[in-house]
């Protein structure tokens, strides 16, 4: 397989396969998790404004009082790389074109120089949180193979995408093919690793908000 054949494969069959596994995986995991259900809470509820599942979905996006000081790298690094990923994935013009070709949906993108800058900042933030994971005793203690593996899965698409655009290291077509391949790996593994928090974070926040909201506690 030469470079062009490789690129053709990742853009065609490879992409189809990865997207299929991703979609089926997401549906399966959502079913597997939420079909377990939960018992109805029979205690007399106490109603307090702001104590509900929906409130908590939004409220948990901000650090609770005093926590920013305790772990600034986690919060600042976390914000930067999550927002950075969202920008480069969804607001880079070629990505929007791809999404349009797959779904018909489209929206305006941002200038590619700005995306470049965001990509570099995102890469830097991801490297910083990786070092924090190695450096902080609690994070190191909690970390398993999955943590290092999923960091790599999330990091490679950003790095290869940026390098392809910058024409670094390898010919453009090869780097682009590697970029697409790395995204496909990310899609395939996302439903079955901690990366799935991208979906369950909403369910988890809703549950904790609802369960505590029943007691009139806004968490």
């Amino acid at each position: 397989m030469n470079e062009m054949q490789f690129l053709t494969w990742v853009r065609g069959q490879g992409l189809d396969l990865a997207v299929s596994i991703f979609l089926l995986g997401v549906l399966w995991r959502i079913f597997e998790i939420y079909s377990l259900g939960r018992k109805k809470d029979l205690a007399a509820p106490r109603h307090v404004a702001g104590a509900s599942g929906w409130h908590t979905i939004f409220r948990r996006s901000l650090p609770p009082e005093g926590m920013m000081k305790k772990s600034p790298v986690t919060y600042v690094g976390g914000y930067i790389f999550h927002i950075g990923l969202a920008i480069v994935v969804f607001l880079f013009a070629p990505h929007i074109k791809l999404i349009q070709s797959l779904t018909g949906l489209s929206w305006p993108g941002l200038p590619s120089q700005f995306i470049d800058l965001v990509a570099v900042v995102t890469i830097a933030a991801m490297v910083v949180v990786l070092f924090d994971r190695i450096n902080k005793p609690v994070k190191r203690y909690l970390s398993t193979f999955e943590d290092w593996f999923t960091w790599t899965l999330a990091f490679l698409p950003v790095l290869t995408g940026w390098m392809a655009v910058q024409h670094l290291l390898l010919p453009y077509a090869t780097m682009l093919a590697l970029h697409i391949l790395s995204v496909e790996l990310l899609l395939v593994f996302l439903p079955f690793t901690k990366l799935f928090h991208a979906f369950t974070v909403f369910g988890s926040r809703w549950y904790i908000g609802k369960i505590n909201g029943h007691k009139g506690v806004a968490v």
Partner: protein
Amino acid sequence: MSASLEKGVRVLKEVIDAPIASYFSSCVHCGLCAEACLFYTETGDPKYTPIHKLEPLRRLYEQEYTLLGRLGKMVGLSKPVTDDELEEWKELVYNSCTLCGRCSVVCPVGNDIVYMVRKFREGMSASGHAPEGIIGAVNRTITIGSPMGVKLPAVKAQMKHVEEDHGLPIPLDVEGAEYMVMLSSMEIINFPEYLAAIAKIMHQAGKTWTLCSTAFEATNAGMQIGNSDLAKVLVTRIVDGAEKLKVKTVISPECGHAYTALRWEGANLIGRPFTFKVQHIIEVLGEFQENGLLKTEGFEVDKLTFHDPCQLARRGGVIKQQRNLMNMVAKNFVEMPDAGFMNWCCGGGGGASAIEEGEELRLEAFKKKKSQLDAVKPDRLVTACANCRIVLEEGLEHYQMDIPVVGLTEMIAEHIPKQGD
């Protein structure tokens, strides 16, 4: 209680629900929960990271309820939960967790960690890995009637004392009373002022109330150890008593876990909603204050601060009432850092204070409370939980801090004008 690993695993499989599955699927190992846990902050030992305390439960969830986990188990990639492992986790699930719930309120993905620890304890106790101290308390509550072995004659003796000292009747088994007052054994043995305070407050408010001879003990060690069957037996005593006496409201005493057991878990344990209301004494006092039924005279003038019991404030949603009550009788009330919703646990909640071998760790964790107290240097410390009170007193004594601890209800009662006002 015949306990076995098999039984424990079966119980754990039963308690795993959609919230738990969602929580485990959401954890990104960020470690922020450690910063919220006083057992981690005061020891610096990462094994006390709250989410790590659930590792055996997480693995069991994965092996039983996820496709990949089941495959992993089949081909031997994922090792089964063993007795040795659960025994090792005993310290993490009981000694170093007071169910204070601070971890749950800081988790960025919204994992209710304390919800999971409470459920994990069901399996720990069913598999025979609960600490001796709590097992003893549970057995005493089931067979004798209270975790400290207090029986009705002891309550009656105290009733008589209060009646003699204060000239106020202590009603027992009065049908149709508005309030049924519960006690914790700690109050019966160590803090008799509580009962006298209730008598004074109810008398002033003009409310009818009663104790119940078959249900005076409010604490629920069954919930603390994590045995819903036993917790249900204890709650049923109270429900039967309240329904027999046809009271409108049952008052949970100054005890955090008694409140959680009765107010939030009770109906779920017996499988139907209550026919009566449940309120913590602080909620009742707050209502009396708001409705002008609580009148006090004079003020405490020394510097006072308030320790929020976790189950009352963060886990129970009662935060303002105690502050309004403090301000009613105190001129110099100061707040500790993190007071209220984010208050730090005394270190002995959730049954932890009953674990003898956990004492050293408990005192280590108390350094957090010490630092909060050092920040405001109060003359006295007020709280609304008899268990907090005992644990605070032990900690203060250990660190040679001369700060008396008082209960809020009794402090309020001291400011009620003498009879015939």
